[in-house]
């Protein structure tokens, strides 16, 4: 049982200090959750801490690849539009990844 940070992550560091298990590490091209350490905060907090502060919809998913913050849930942007934006973000990320390693919001 572990949450996963995917390629939508913008490396903003917000989640890293909150993890009660020190399961989140800075990595390239984006932050990672060490699966063995992640407990989804069970026993520590009511809500998974990383997913409670993450500002990016879709960037943190569960073991079934379901986003804890689905499109529109954080920004209030209507669902369909939010889905399109996330897709656009994914394409941009893939293109950026081809160009080489990236720093924060390059």
């Amino acid at each position: 049982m572990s949450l996963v940070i995917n390629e939508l992550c913008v490396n903003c560091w917000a989640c890293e200090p909150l993890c009660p298990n020190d399961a989140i590490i800075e990595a390239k091209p984006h932050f990672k959750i060490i699966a063995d350490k992640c407990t989804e905060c069970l026993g520590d907090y009511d809500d998974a801490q990383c997913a409670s502060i993450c500002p990016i919809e879709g960037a943190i998913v569960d073991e079934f690849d379901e986003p804890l913050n689905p499109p529109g849930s954080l920004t209030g942007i209507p669902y369909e539009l939010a889905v399109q934006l996330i897709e656009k973000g994914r394409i941009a990320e893939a293109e950026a990844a081809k160009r080489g390693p990236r720093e924060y919001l390059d």
Partner: protein
Amino acid sequence: MELPVLGQDAAATHGGGCSSHSCGTTDDQLGHLPDAIRAKVQDHPCYSEDAHHYFARMHVAVAPACNIQCHYCNRKYDCSNESRPGVVSELLTPEQAVMKTKAVAAAIPQMTVLGIAGPGDPLANPERTFETFRRLSEEAPDIKLCVSTNGLALPESVEELAKHNIDHVTITINCLDPEIGAKIYPWVFWENKRIFGVEGARILIEQQQKGLEMLTARGILVKVNSVMIPGVNDEHLKEVSKVVKAKGAFLHNVMPLIAEAEHGTFYGLMEQPSPTADELMALQEACSGDMNMMRHCRQCRADAVGLLGEDRGAEFTLDKIAEMNIDYEKAMVMRAAVHEGITAELDAKRAEKAAKTADAPKAKKGLRPVLMAIATSGGGVINQHFGHAKEFQIYEASEDGVRFMSHRKTDLYCSGDDTCGDGESVLQKTIKALAGCEVVLCSKIGYEPWGMLEEAGIQPNGEHGMETIEEAMLAVYAEMEAAGKLAPRADSAACAA
């Protein structure tokens, strides 16, 4: 007829008469401050309208995390063409930030102020932010330190801020009413939970107000920034202005909302309108009766470097500063000499203005004020070609003299052309940005813009090139009076009485 130019000490030297801001008898947002505070801020480029032409500032982007979401912010993209808060190119560690600050301080000796403003919230990144401040206060003691925050984590940070000798804090306060707040802030992260809507906004507002009170109680100067969002908080900001002044904020800076669909923000995508230049100015005027207003803010990026309105960040990227060998002890000696020179020049100009103000004629004819747009590249002189102006300075001429009102950008916050925007020509955008102005003063102007400006009811004037702004404006104002164009308006009668 000689019209006075009002200056830094206008409010102090004007005995009696109509001396409230709302009647426009002073051009200076610091005029009403007690001397002790004014001495602290008059050389700060972000607080003092005349200092910002001489002293520079920089932001270091050490604070990526944020603890709230604002509807005008998108944490996802950086566009290299954009210049607006929250946007950065390169995140720095505290170590790198200190290196960069010293490199800039040595290369740009007039840089006196270092701010941490993001790209997230500085106080949501306490370790990075305070490590940077701690090291700078030790290693570069001649630099003033500032921080800008949304206020959520402010109360718990006040002690630490005081420790690092931070004497200026900016809090962004957009509302006092949680119902309005819920339309601006979709959520806050508070005590290990994400809290949505009115409840989240209520917590944020409480923390902001508490933080403001704690800072002013400790003698730390507080400026309040507010984003004007038409139809959401525009009317409400008048109340905000009153309350924050009563709690001791020394300056209120009302800024226009930036909302474009291509930024991917909620407001941008939902087509929330931004205020027009004259709507913004009207609100600033409405607030100014109760508050020292700031009018020259440029809404900088979180990694801006240089004088306000310029960004020299590209000269100080990490690979470039790695090659610079900075002897900071030596740099400080040179910097002190440069600061002394600038201060002497500023003092002389302020004294000159004060002297002119002192022998101001008192009899009023009840003439109406006129807004004029100035094309200048600096130095208080009309020295720019209309078509080269990336921004205009807006001044008001009246019987009381000349006062600075605002900057209006022609290319707005984006320098991209073909790839973004809605196809409106630069000239059309410029004319729109000058709404409310009756005259444009520039060194030269082409045939096409001349005609279009006249059509829009704005008189172009290229006859005063290389003259000072004040002299030229007063000359034009006198010409307008002679031509009978300044008949008093009904609504100005109360002011003239």
